[in-house]
């Protein structure tokens, strides 16, 4: 019901470097369990921030808070300088600018691949069907999925499904992409095709926040790596430093365990 429109974004003047995403001292609890305990994050345009951390450290919760799927208890989240934690802000309008890809793909099983992709452009952005489909096909073409356009998702491999999910998020030209362990549900063989797709997005300058356990991939795409533990960012920095020469014993411990699991 608020009058806030897209024009409200980017309140600072031109020439300043407002980060696309600015998370400031965000807290979140589920019942008595404190899941986020003062997380701060700044993601400048065209950069990639990678979140690492053990299962349950709060990576998914942080991403869901940014996308307003979960409401924060305290702190602020800004998108292009605009406070999106303000209750006056229309969450649907905010989500239109943020793409999110999930661990479990979450394609719509009752819709063909192309219809999965054109749903949001058509219904949310009012793009006419023929134009939405042409754009969707062009995207599928670019990611080597053109021959799957008329298939139902359950006919696709996991890797293909996840790439379609990425294309589906791209179809609304998001300002920011959130990726939550997008390869964790995949066979090792299929992981690479999805990671290649994400790398391609990075090459095109997409601003992204990525939660992952793939450390090799993290060091390739990250501009900043944040290590989360128990809802706090314990260590952050360049991928070289955090992943190969961590200061914190907890970070070192976590990386050793990941290494032992054969993921480095």
């Amino acid at each position, binding site marked *: 019901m608020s009058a806030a429109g897209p024009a409200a974004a980017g309140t600072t003047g031109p020439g300043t470097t407002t980060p696309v995403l600015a998370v400031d001292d965000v807290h979140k609890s589920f019942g008595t369990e404190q899941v986020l305990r003062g997380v701060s994050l700044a993601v400048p345009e065209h950069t990639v921030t990678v979140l690492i951390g053990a299962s349950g450290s709060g990576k998914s919760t942080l991403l*869901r808070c940014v*996308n307003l*799927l979960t409401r924060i208890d305290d702190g602020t989240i800004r998108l292009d300088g605009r406070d999106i934690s303000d209750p006056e802000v229309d969450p*649907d*309008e905010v*989500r*239109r600018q*943020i*793409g*999110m890809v*999930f661990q*479990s*793909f*979450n*394609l*719509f*099983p*009752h819709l063909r691949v192309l219809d999965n992709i054109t*749903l*949001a452009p058509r*219904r*949310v*952005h009012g793009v006419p069907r023929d134009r939405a489909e042409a754009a969707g096909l062009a995207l599928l073409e670019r990611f080597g999925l053109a021959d799957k356009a008329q298939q139902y998702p*359950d006919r696709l491999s*996991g890797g293909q499904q996840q790439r379609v*999910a990425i294309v*589906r*998020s791209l179809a*609304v030209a998001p300002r920011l992409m959130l990726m939550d362990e997008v390869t964790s*549900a995949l066979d090792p063989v299929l992981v690479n095709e999805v990671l290649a797709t994400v790398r391609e997005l990075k090459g095109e300058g997409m601003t992204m926040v990525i939660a992952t356990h793939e450390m090799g991939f993290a060091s390739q795409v990250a501009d900043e790596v944040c290590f989360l533990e128990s809802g706090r960012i314990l260590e952050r920095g360049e991928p070289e430093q955090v992943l190969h020469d961590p200061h914190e014993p907890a970070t070192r411990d976590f990386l050793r365990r990941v290494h032992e699991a054969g993921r480095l």
Partner: protein
Amino acid sequence: MTTTGAGTPQPSAEELRRRAVRQRQARRRTLVAGASSVVVLGALAALVVTSPGWPVVQETFFDWAYGREVLPAVFEGLLLNIRLTIIATVCIAVLGLGLALARTSTAAALAPLRILATVYVDLFRGVPTLLVILLVGFGVPALGLAGVTSSVVVLGTTAVILTYSAYVAEVLRSGILSVHPSQSAAARSLGLTAGQTLRHVVLPQGIRRVVPPLLNDFVSLLKDTGLISVLGVVDAIRAAQIESSRSFNYTPYVVAALLFLVLTIPLTRVTDRFMLRSIARQNAQVGV
């Protein structure tokens, strides 16, 4: 089984022997099943036909000449059942969906609606359909409200609609709730509003899953439109009743039963097929 395509390898001698054995086993099983069916049904028929009351039963329930005579009247009544079923189905779909949506809504502002819908469903699911028909059919005209119909057909059908909407609402609600929340999360993160998510993502999947129980309810509805005959509406059952009371012969009831079966058996077969297919699809989706 026996044909071999161009690309398929020739089966080995051992495989051919196994196939022959399997074929023999299948033939034997069919034979046993067929024979036992004949024996059981034959025994039942013999029991009925040789019972001391059979000649009288045959005369009062299976008088085919009389049956043919009353067929047009009963069929005429059945047409009313069919018409009412079609009209009721449309109304039930609308009302049932409205109730299901009200009950599954989470918005705080809709709390009163949610409570109202819950009370409605509890009420109409808990009272026998026949009682609802009697109460509406005789109660509403007794109120003497201006502008409210006193047509028993309309009132009786309304009563059936009220009851079935409660059943259908619950079936639809279970379908809606069975769609995993991650589907909504994905839709919302694409910028779809709550309404668009419901309309384009949740409802299409939820409804598809409950097609078999909905078809079951449709068959029951067709039969239960016969209940409004208690109000004096001349449907198939009432027509049969009129004919049979004229002659003290129950063959018209058997005719009505057969007519209902002609309608319901194909429907139940279709329902069965849908159910099996839906189960197969759900099983196929378990492994990602």
